[in-house]
């Protein structure tokens, strides 16, 4: 039996009679012989289909939107695309009253998420990791907001914050004329109101990530530090937290992504009215709908892309370099 039959007809291959001999014969001949024409075609498919899909769905669209950012286009017919150079960006930076507030709100979003729900999530994870009673119940309860769609979250919180019939205003009696607290509309309040909802969800998300990280901490480390006489806080600070470094990387990247892609919650909450403008909402408002400003919207999308890259790339490079050294 030759090597050819084993490779071309797989059904014949498992025959025990072929033994180790053909293998020994094949190895010195190198890799070329291992791949028949059919193998090469299937391999080409295997590499080709994902490549085509990736290029078409990621690169072509990204590059097209970068190109469109320098044009003016109403979305009707390709011949109406007009090259306008940097005009879209000039307008965006100088004339659009919503742009800088939107950038600011995206940054606030990130800072708040990293300062409040992330430590909260870590705290809950540490508590749940102690195998307290009903730990599963708490785990489920805290994680539930993450499972619920953000649009639903926005809808629910919007009911809580409703100025006339909402839970909060009804409880504190702020739904009478002259005493209104407009949680959804007041530009000094609404971003914080919506951030409470976002934090409520993000805490559960962070808790699960940290809980997974904590499960991976070697129990012997705790034992060792206990033997060394460290108290609970010292153990956590000096032993447990440092071993969570990979988790922290994930947490930071996830939080940055959450802050940049923040959209659904606010869109349902008040459609990004004054006080809650976000880059993602500006993009949608400009691109989706009739006689859309696709060029202008793409310019905002490019700004968002640049911000994402500027934040994520240096961080990842630094982290991976550190890990390689370690």
């Amino acid at each position, binding site marked *: 039996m030759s090597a050819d039959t084993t490779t071309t007809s797989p059904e014949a291959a498992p025959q025990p009679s072929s033994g180790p001999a053909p293998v020994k014969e094949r190895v010195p001949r190198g890799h070329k012989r291992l791949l028949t024409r059919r193998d090469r075609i299937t391999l080409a498919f295997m590499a080709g289909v994902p490549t085509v899909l990736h290029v078409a769905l990621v690169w072509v669209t990204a590059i097209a939107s970068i190109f469109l950012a320098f044009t003016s286009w109403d979305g009707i017919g390709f011949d109406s695309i007009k090259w306008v150079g940097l005009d879209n960006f000039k307008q965006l930076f100088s*004339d659009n009253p919503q742009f800088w507030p939107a950038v600011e709100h995206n940054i606030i979003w990130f800072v708040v998420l990293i300062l409040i729900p992330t430590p909260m999530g870590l705290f809950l994870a540490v508590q749940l990791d102690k195998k307290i009673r009903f730990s599963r119940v708490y785990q489920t309860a805290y994680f539930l907001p993450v499972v619920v769609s953000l649009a639903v979250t926005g809808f629910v919180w919007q009911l809580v914050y409703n100025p006339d019939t909402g839970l909060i205003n009804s409880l504190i009696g702020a739904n009478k004329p002259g005493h209104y607290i*407009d949680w959804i509309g007041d530009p000094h309040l609404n971003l914080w109101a919506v951030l409470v909802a976002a934090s409520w969800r993000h805490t559960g998300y962070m808790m699960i990530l940290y809980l997974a990280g904590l499960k991976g901490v070697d129990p012997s480390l705790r034992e060792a530090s206990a033997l060394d006489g460290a108290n609970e806080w010292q153990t956590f600070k000096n032993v447990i937290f440092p071993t969570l470094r990979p988790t922290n990387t994930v947490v930071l990247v996830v939080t940055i992504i959450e802050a940049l892609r923040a959209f659904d919650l606010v869109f349902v909450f008040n459609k990004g009215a004054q006080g809650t403008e976000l880059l993602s909402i500006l993009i949608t408002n400009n691109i989706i709908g009739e006689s859309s400003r696709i060029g202008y919207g793409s310019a905002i999308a490019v700004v968002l892309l640049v911000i994402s890259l500027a934040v994520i790339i240096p961080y990842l490079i630094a982290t991976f370099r550190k890990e390689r050294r370690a």
Partner: protein
Amino acid sequence: MDLSPSGLSLPSPSRRSLLRGAGGAALLAGAGIPLLSACGSSSSGSDSKTVSVGSNDSDAVPKKAYAAVYDAFKKQSGITVDVNTKDHNTFQEQINSYLQGTPDDVFKWFAGYRMQFFAKKGLASPIDDVWDKIGGNFPDAMKKLSKGEDGKYYFVPMTTYPWAVFYRKSVFQAKGYQVPTTWDELVALCKKMKKDGLVPIAFGDKDAWPAMGTFDQINFRLNGYDFHVELMAGKAAWTDAKVKAVFDHWAELLPYHQDGFMGRTWQDAAQTLVSKKAGMYLLGTFVAQQFTNKADLDDLDFFAFPEINSAYGQDTVEAPTDGFMVSKAGKGKAGMVKLMEYLGTPGAEELYLKGDPSVVAASSKASTASYTPLQKKAFEMISNAKSLTQFMDRDSRPDFTSTVMQPSLQKFLQNPKGVDSLLASIERQKKTIFAS
């Protein structure tokens, strides 16, 4: 490495079959594209016995009412109407790609600038031949609304409704209020209502469009229809002193509006009128939908927004009009012409209104016998109007109104003092949008 042949070749069959599967899937996906496009074109290339209609009437009431109209048309002409209904907002948001792709022969749309835009882009077909037959059924104001910028007809109006100031007859009677006909009377009435513990003007601007209705009213009362149209078309400047005056008037009225309006929907605002906590509410007649109790509905009445400038009086009515247009796919089809002619008859409108009494007929020939008192009043108001406007977002470029005017008006409502810089900002943004 010592690999047995079975160890080497065993995974290969499974890997290959997997690949074969993947290849097949890719082939299927490739084949799917022409298949899909074939599906799309077959619907528009149908015979003369059917006409397809793209509709945004996803709400139960209008959907059922239109179904009755199409049934009657089928009985009369033998032509079947194939209706594709999409969610109201989705239809509106996807209209661009819908009209460019494989649209239905006839589609539901709005009169005014939004109609003219698609006519200008060549995405709609002129229907002058239809209007030769139905022209006599409509008043001049409706004819004006149905024409494109090129003077050809593109639209058959079906239903309309006015914007006005709504109030409760019983409240006005009990407190001895008079319907205000001038600005000063309106302000005086607001003051009186406030003293009486009422919210003078109910208001909710969470969805950002109700404020545009207030702006429209003050603008065409103060500066007249012609200026309003010029302003909406991007020709007049927003920095004009006339526009500033509109905001000054509005600011005078703002303290009498309901608190906390930025977070309130129009439905919730209407509830304060239902519960008689508010004295007045400026909105379209659709506010009646919130009056589910028959006694409350009978108690509801409205008056035209008071006169501000005696040169214009109350000659303009904001009356958004819905109707039908013909896409490029429906061009020249015999069935389409018959359907459009039918939809332009008073009979078709009467039939529709039987199913949906919240609006009134666009045709002046349609019978008003079955109208409720509110409908009768609305119909008279529209028929007697010298000019009709649609609504800010229907009279102007939708990208301008949604990305510039909605946030700007909300900003004004939050901070009525910063009008000058706000108007300068609107004007700068307007120039770039209307230039593109």
